[in-house]
């Protein structure tokens, strides 16, 4: 089932500080992705999105004047877009839909809609048993994961900082990156940035800006007749582990299960991956995911990130767009992982292009290490 679908169009909305509405940005991303595929709105019979309103997919369908026969608004934070790839593949394989748009957009920076404490719903257990203590959400949970990681493996704040330094290096090669013209970042600068929730500083945290993206999924057979070379969906997997800050061990994360499922479905292993796009909400997220997905052993991610292997020219090019840390993080970053993976596999990545990649991995992480979803993509052979 998993080899029968492909991504045929990808696009970003405007990024940065847009002063545009969520639905304006959604419309940009969706129509640009359809144009990239050589398709139009009238071809769309499936919509997957969240973060728009309570009825997210319904809202987008209404706004675009589309009446889809399939939709999905699974709300899982930033990994939902990797989950939608699985659901879209299943919907297309079963015949319920033929052309599905997966999209997300946010104007969080322009609208100043982000709060350090997150959204507390008073009827949840967390509202009674966690919110009264005053954790930052999601930041304090990642901070505790980082603290535990440092304790177990002897890692340091400098090891975390290397993730942000690497993201900046890649962003300097991506004209669409928010930090494109910002110059290189140093470990010292990350360590000297204002402390938020120890051991994480503001420079360990992703950008908080507007942005969005969309990808178009259809059958591989149909994809071969469209405008761009199809990018096959080779495998996917997911794991949902927690909503509260206290109920599961901090390490390892659910990415172990999601990665195993995705690699098994694709019949691939980490050594087959030519381009890696990991959700980098925080620097620690990348270290945890590299280990959980099997790119290195437990406790080894810091030395991997500090090596040339993950930098431009290396054999494990990591977060080539500049990531959520230096390119764009609109609150839910997952769809932009897919956009970059497809561009790399198509050879459209300009100055940051990886040499002839055949397989890319996109891994989303939502909430407080709550949801984990891995997608493997490949060039059509």
């Amino acid at each position, binding site marked *: 089932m998993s080899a029968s679908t492909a991504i045929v169009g990808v696009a970003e909305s405007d990024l940065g500080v847009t002063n545009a509405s969520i639905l304006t940005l959604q419309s940009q991303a969706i129509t640009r992705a359809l144009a990239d595929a050589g398709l139009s709105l009238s071809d769309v019979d499936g919509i997957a999105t969240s973060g728009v309103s309570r009825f997210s997919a319904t809202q987008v369908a209404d706004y675009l004047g589309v009446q889809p026969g399939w939709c999905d608004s699974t709300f899982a934070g930033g990994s939902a877009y990797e989950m939608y790839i699985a659901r879209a593949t299943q919907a297309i394989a079963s015949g319920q839909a033929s052309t599905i748009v997966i999209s997300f957009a946010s104007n969080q920076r322009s609208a100043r809609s982000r709060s350090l404490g997150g959204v507390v719903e008073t009827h949840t257990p967390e509202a009674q048993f*966690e919110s009264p*203590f005053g954790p930052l959400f999601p930041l304090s949970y990642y901070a*505790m994961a980082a603290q535990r990681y440092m304790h177990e493996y002897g890692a340091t704040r400098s090891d975390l900082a290397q993730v942000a330094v690497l993201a900046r290096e890649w962003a300097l090669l991506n004209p669409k990156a928010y930090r494109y013209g910002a110059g290189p970042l140093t470990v010292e600068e990350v360590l000297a940035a204002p402390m938020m929730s120890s051991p*994480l500083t503001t420079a360990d945290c992703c950008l908080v800006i507007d942005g969005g993206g969309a990808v178009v999924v259809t059958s591989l057979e149909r994809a071969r007749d469209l405008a761009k070379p199809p990018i096959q969906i080779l495998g996917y997997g997911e794991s949902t582990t927690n909503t509260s800050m206290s109920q599961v061990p901090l390490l390892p994360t659910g990415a172990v299960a999601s990665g195993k499922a995705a690699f098994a479905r694709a019949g691939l292993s980490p050594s087959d991956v030519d381009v890696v796009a990991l959700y980098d909400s925080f620097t620690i997220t990348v270290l945890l995911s590299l280990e959980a997905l099997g790119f290195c052993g437990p406790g080894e991610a810091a030395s991997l990130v500090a090596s040339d292997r993950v930098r431009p020219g290396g054999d494990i090019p990591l977060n080539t767009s500049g990531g959520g840390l230096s390119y764009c993080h609109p609150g839910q970053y997952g769809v932009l992982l897919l956009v970059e993976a497809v561009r790399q596999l198509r050879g459209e990545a300009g100055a940051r292009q990886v040499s002839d990649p055949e397989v890319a991995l996109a891994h989303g992480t939502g909430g407080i290490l709550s949801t984990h979803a891995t997608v493997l993509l490949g060039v059509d052979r």
Partner: protein
Amino acid sequence: MSEQVLPIPDDVTTPWWEATKESKLLLQTCRECQHVQHYPRAVCTQCAGNQLEWVESAGQGVVDSFTVVHRAPSPAFTAPYVIARVRLSEGPTLLTRIVGADESELACDLPVALSWESLSDGHQLPVFQLKHQQ
């Protein structure tokens, strides 16, 4: 300090919050499988049973992890303060605070003991202190 973030107890959790007024930290145990859990629920997460009883925690645990919050999420809180995950000797882990300790003294796996902080509605929040300070 402006208005505190106060819990809104429900059908399951009201006894738990009432017990905090007497400085008692309750945990749920399952009458069928003896599983101990926190936060309180209408179901045992181990055997799906619904015969859950309250037992009082001994109030002893270790720091699973911690973070010092330097920028408060709302005017209800005054930074800095220490958020922690404490693993109780009975098994469950809870989100809490470590009070009365400098950041330099904190580390994962240190032993801690229960203490209490009052809320304006009469309930108390279970917090912890490093053992050597008691």
